[in-house]
């Protein structure tokens, strides 16, 4: 949990974590049925938001770097990968996947698996 205070002012991540704990420990036991289900949804959303606030780890940065490397190999001549943002890198890779230029490539598959695992673990 990020526990940064600025002059006694708890940060957003800490407030979110405390609010979630309050919801789960103080309120949830008093709820049932639909209200209980909704409280769980709220707690889940708070957990995801808190992790996102904490920022992406070095794993995600490395995956992004490797995706750029893959994109460089499939870009049309004259286009530099360094000129593209992450969204454009993804779009270039999607186009290559769709038209068969990356069919069955183990290196691509391994990287996509790492990315999916990283996205998935954020939600565990």
């Amino acid at each position, binding site marked *: 949990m990020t526990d940064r205070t600025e002059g006694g002012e708890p940060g957003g991540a800490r407030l979110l974590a405390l609010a979630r704990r309050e919801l789960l420990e103080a309120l949830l036991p008093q709820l049932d049925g639909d209200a209980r289900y909704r409280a769980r949804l709220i707690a889940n959303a708070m957990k995801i938001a808190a992790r996102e606030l904490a920022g992406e780890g070095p794993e995600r940065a490395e995956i992004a770097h490797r995706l750029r490397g893959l994109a460089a190999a499939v870009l049309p001549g004259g286009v530099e990968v360094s000129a593209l943002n992450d969204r454009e890198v993804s*779009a270039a890779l999607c186009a290559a996947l769709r038209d068969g230029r990356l069919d069955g490539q183990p290196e691509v*598959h391994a990287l996509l698996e790492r990315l999916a695992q990283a996205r998935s673990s954020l939600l565990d």
Partner: protein
Amino acid sequence: MTADLAESRLAERKAALEGFLAAAAGAEAVEIVDARPLTDGAIQENWLLDLQVSGGAQAGALEAVLRTDARSAVAVSRSRAEEFAVLSAAHRAGVTVPEPLWLCTDHGVIGKPFYVMRRVGGTAAPRRLMKESDLGGDRDELAARLGRELARIHSIVPPQAELAFLGAPPDNPAQAAIARYRGYLDDLGGGFLALEWGLRWCELHAPPPQGPVLLHQDFRTGNYMVDRQGLTGILDWEFAEWGDPMSDIGWFCAACWRYAHPELEAGGIAPRGPFYRGYEAESGRRIDPEAVAFWEIMAHLRWAVIALQQGERTLSGGEDSLELALTGRVYPPALEVEILRQTAPQRWRAGS
């Protein structure tokens, strides 16, 4: 009348609705004794109606369900009138469904089209099916029964005059679906690498098409009702379409619909064996495990696309629903992991 009904839109429409029901039932009068909303539908709105029918063939107490559109309808979902026609066709084919009673397309009655069906007992909640092993009766028998039911759905083949709205069946349902999902991903802004990988694998490895037959398209645990004895009704016909019968089998068996019991490959309730045997015995059609495996990958792709579309509804659809937002955020990554696992490089045919 409960507080729910008194406070609801149905309250001010009570007399109009009773009038419609009496005429539809050929009764002297119909009284709505009670009405309670079911909160389960993200797309549809369902009401439990306790009716007292005076005169006519349905005279007496009648427990019914009224089904109508929720606030925001999804484009891919069928209209209530079309759903009623599909439900009626399934009922005629001997599928165990809540008996369809009356359709009302007149907006003047409750403000939007709806239909009424006879209520069936039991529950459809996957959480309960996973926890209570005696629910639904013997699970192998339940799976075999579901196989037979699905075969009966698939016994309906085009053309059917009353299902003309389904359009012409696609020549190649798998390739048509792949093209459709790619279009949806483009509409969502693109960039879905794992889904593109999976779709390309499917494009290259689709088995020869079978059918066409009537597909339920959401035939899975969670969409059929059971009580302690067994199956009471198959629900949610809003995605019905002509297509390849193996697609419904793949959807039912896909890992993403096994809930707490991934080892029970037929919908988290039983092994595949009884389900396949029930289907094969009723349909006379042989199930090719490789074709089913293909359609299970397609099932994950389809569910991922639907989840993203539901998430998108909260971004641009003007529908601020936490549940829909979480659907779009929570499900796709795990589906991607599963899609990639099932389309590993060694599963690409040489030369493809």
